[in-house]
């Protein structure tokens, strides 16, 4: 299972957000460049059609593949009270033959996208990972070099943490408390629900935070 929230941030604020995350998490960002292929099974396979995502990590010299299946989300009054979305999720590393396997099983390519950005993985009550990325679509099939952003001015921020059925409430609370730190810059919510960007005092606070963290960053790195 995993807990997930999503938010939107304008591209001009992405750098500030990255600095903020650096300060909050204490880890340096990892560059993210993933080619996501979403495969759907045909109606004749199984009683309902299911969706499987194949992620190819293009950042490193040797592309690595991961398969991920996201199941249904938790429902009910308890789930509604949580500020995060809890879904069943199964993920595994696979070899590059996974694509052929799924095609042979009868899955079809539903859509694909390219995720380019950065990610931060750290522990703060739970194993939280934050990705800030721009979602790109490919005009031609599999043309990852020609990808263009779906929304040039906006990037997607996704905060996820793995959970199990007995600890998901703690993970959810850890995630929400972390997300409060990001409140000035963006509003994170469950993937199905979304709010307007919060423009209120974000600029002001943002400048402060930038100043603070740049200073801190500088002092850590250079020799005064």
């Amino acid at each position: 299972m995993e807990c997930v929230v999503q938010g939107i941030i304008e591209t001009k604020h992405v750098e500030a957000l990255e600095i903020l995350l650096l300060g909050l998490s204490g880890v340096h960002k990892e560059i993210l460049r993933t080619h996501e292929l979403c495969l759907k099974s045909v109606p004749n396979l199984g009683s309902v059609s299911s969706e499987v995502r194949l992620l190819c990590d293009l950042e490193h010299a040797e592309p690595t593949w991961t398969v991920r299946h996201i199941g249904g989300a938790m429902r009910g009054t308890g789930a509604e009270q949580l500020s995060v979305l809890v879904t069943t999720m199964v993920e595994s590393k696979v070899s590059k033959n996974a694509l052929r396997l799924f095609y042979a099983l009868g899955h079809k390519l539903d859509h694909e996208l390219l995720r380019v950005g950065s990610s931060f993985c750290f522990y703060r009550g739970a194993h939280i990972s934050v990705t800030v990325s721009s979602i790109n679509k490919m005009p031609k099939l599999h043309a990852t070099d020609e990808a263009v952003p779906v929304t040039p001015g906006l990037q997607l921020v996704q905060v996820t943490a793995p959970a199990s059925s007995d600890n998901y409430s703690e993970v959810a609370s850890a995630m929400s408390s972390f997300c409060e730190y990001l409140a000035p810059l963006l509003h994170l919510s469950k993937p199905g629900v979304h709010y307007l960007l919060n423009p209120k005092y974000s600029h002001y606070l943002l400048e402060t935070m930038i100043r603070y963290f740049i200073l801190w960053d500088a002092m850590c790195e250079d020799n005064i």
Partner: protein
Amino acid sequence: MIGVQEQQQQQARVAERLNPAVHQQLNLDSVKTRAISLFKAISRILEDFDAIARTNSTPKWHEILGQFSMVNLELFNIVEDIKNVSKAFIVHPKNVNAENATILPIMLSSKLLPEMEMDDNTKREQLLLGMQGLPVALQIERLKGRVDAIAAACESAEKIIADTRKAYFGTRQGPNLLPAVDKAQAAKIQEQETLLRSAVNHGEGLRFPSDQRHVTSALPMHLADILNSGDGAYSFSESSGMYQKSTPLSGNANSPLLQASVAQVTGRAAASPSSAIGNTSFDNTTASSMQFANSPKSGTNIVNMPSPQQQSNQQLQRQLQPKKLMLPLHQQQLLNNPQLRPSSVHLLGQNQLSQMPDISTQAQQKFQQMHGQQHVQYSQALVAQPGRQLGSAPMHMGQPQLTQGSQMTRPLNQFSSAANNAIYNAAQATPASQMISNISAMMPSQTVMPRMPLGMGGVNRTLPSQNLSDQIYNIGSSNAGGMMTQHSNPAAAFVSQGAQNIQGTIQNAAVQNHPNFQQQRPRNQQ
């Protein structure tokens, strides 16, 4: 070690009268009292434990933990008090005996534990990065400067946060100093946001209609070795949800092989015009050969066609068209032969002669559709129906080129022994050579299907023509009321097996050639 101890003892004796200030600070009396009370509490707890151990009763952990925490706190307080003045005193071991000897060196050493030492070193390095070459005074100055800068930054940040908070909460509508985001912009942003979210979560806006989907000439690196560029390797979800043909591993290499096998199959078809159950068996043969071609024993990796029985013909048609398989045109047409196969298959298991009239009309219609090209198949269709082979079969066998009229005029003789005899005679009259050629034409199919099911009850797989003829005749004669096609094609015999009590090896041989119908085998061997 001993020398140090002596020295220390002397010093202690000299300074026996403690410094009054230290004395006051230490407040020895109270410390002593507290130490004694602590000692008493601990001994009480130990006695309790002894009693519990002796009586073997379960201890009340809650109380014990409470007592322990009290004792712990008391000890902590005492130690804190003593720490303040501990610098003035040196503790040295007075009595070294067997118990102390091993621990003493560790306790007395001032060296840190190895891990602590490493930590210490790394932190020191980090702190003094680049400064180690400078004199100590300069280092101290720089460190001080750093500390000051950080303090200043923290202060200014706090100030600004406090100001902003005041402003924010002061004016409930939001601070006026901030630029107002006008509604149009907000709406635009909202729209973009929905777009992005739906794209990520549901894939909206990322799907292309099938006609726009074509592979770029150059696949990216990570996909190039997985997918073939030339092969239409992609399967896109379409509304029909048709089956996906798996792609051959190397498209080019396979196509000549595919062509070869196809040619073989079509050649077979040509050689035996009255062979098989017309289109149905032909297709079955093709399909089965395809199926087996995919098995590991076969050298080629031919496209795997799904089991023809379960598939609708439309799917077949559509599969063939967009894919770049090198099927020759006429085979496509054969496969396109729409309703014959299911219907004939459907009839296989049926024992009802009453259906014949319906079938006849069907056949008529079909024949009209496919006139001129596929009359052979129609003949087979007619043949396939149980009980119908009587009239038309011998005719077809003799003359692959039929006219419409003859087909229509031979409709559907019901079963009758008279007809049976007629067939029997016709079979005898039929040139055995043709029958044999048909059979031999069927032979090659066996080579393509290495996985031919064996163990068909001692079936003689090699069918010498003579044997076959004999068997045909035998069957023809032994079936009194039963219909038997002495159609040379063993497959036809197989077709009728569902309907009648057919004995002999012919249908076994036929079944061999049509592994699709394996399930009918038990019925055969009655």
